[in-house]
């Protein structure tokens, strides 16, 4: 049995999941902090 499709699928799931959450968290933080700054002015 060729193991590589399983290896590639495992890395794809991990990297897309982690990268997606990282970008989502960063965007949510930037949006909230920017809105807070705008409201302060």
């Amino acid at each position, binding site marked *: 049995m060729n193991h590589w499709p399983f290896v590639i699928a495992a890395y794809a799931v991990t990297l897309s999941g982690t990268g997606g959450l990282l970008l989502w968290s960063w965007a949510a933080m930037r949006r*909230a902090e920017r809105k807070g700054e705008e409201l302060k002015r």
Partner: protein
Amino acid sequence: MHIYANPTRFLKIARPLTAWLGWSGLALIALGPGWGLLFGPSDYLQGDSVRIMYVHVPAAWLGMAGWTGIAAASLAHLVWRHPLAGIAARAIAVPGALFTAICLVTGSLWGRPTWGTYWEWDGRMTSMLILLFLYIGYIALADADRERGGTGRIAAIFGLVGAINIPVIRFSVNWWNTLHQGQSISFTGGGSSIDSSMLWPLFGSALGFSLLFGAIVLMRMRAMLARQKIEARLRRLGA
């Protein structure tokens, strides 16, 4: 711990720390799993599927460490009423759930070529699946409690009670006859059964994902604190 109870003081430290943890985590992930995938040796028994270890083991560690963090923050919230503890617990829940799900998916993908099956209802896999359900329950409970203007007490109690599952996961391979392999790495003098050519990239990978986990938690805490500030200011303006 109470030094950081002041959100302004916490943010002063969290802002530079977020970038530092994020970038160093990404660099280590490129080195650890990257090296494991492209240059690491294949196993004499498991072949190339052993490369899944570099993403599966850190995900399992972070799934369990995440709930341990929720339990510690819940204790601080209930006992000392630490103002940031509830926020920290809620910030940990989503990345903790994600890494638990990644652990289950990558474990299944590792299981198919090595055990001949994607899933088996054995102690380790079942207790890890229960952890994912606990995370989902915690996220739903904490969100509902917050929307109803609660103090976060119910979610904190749930966070503490759910911690019972952590030693069950840890010792499941000893307590029951499982398909999942036993402990391969020991810090208590038992030695490791993994060769150093695989062990060092694994440590790099675990550290890299842990640093990135820390950066994500800080980002989520900063977003929650900013939203709290906005809500308070809007309430003041409306009054």
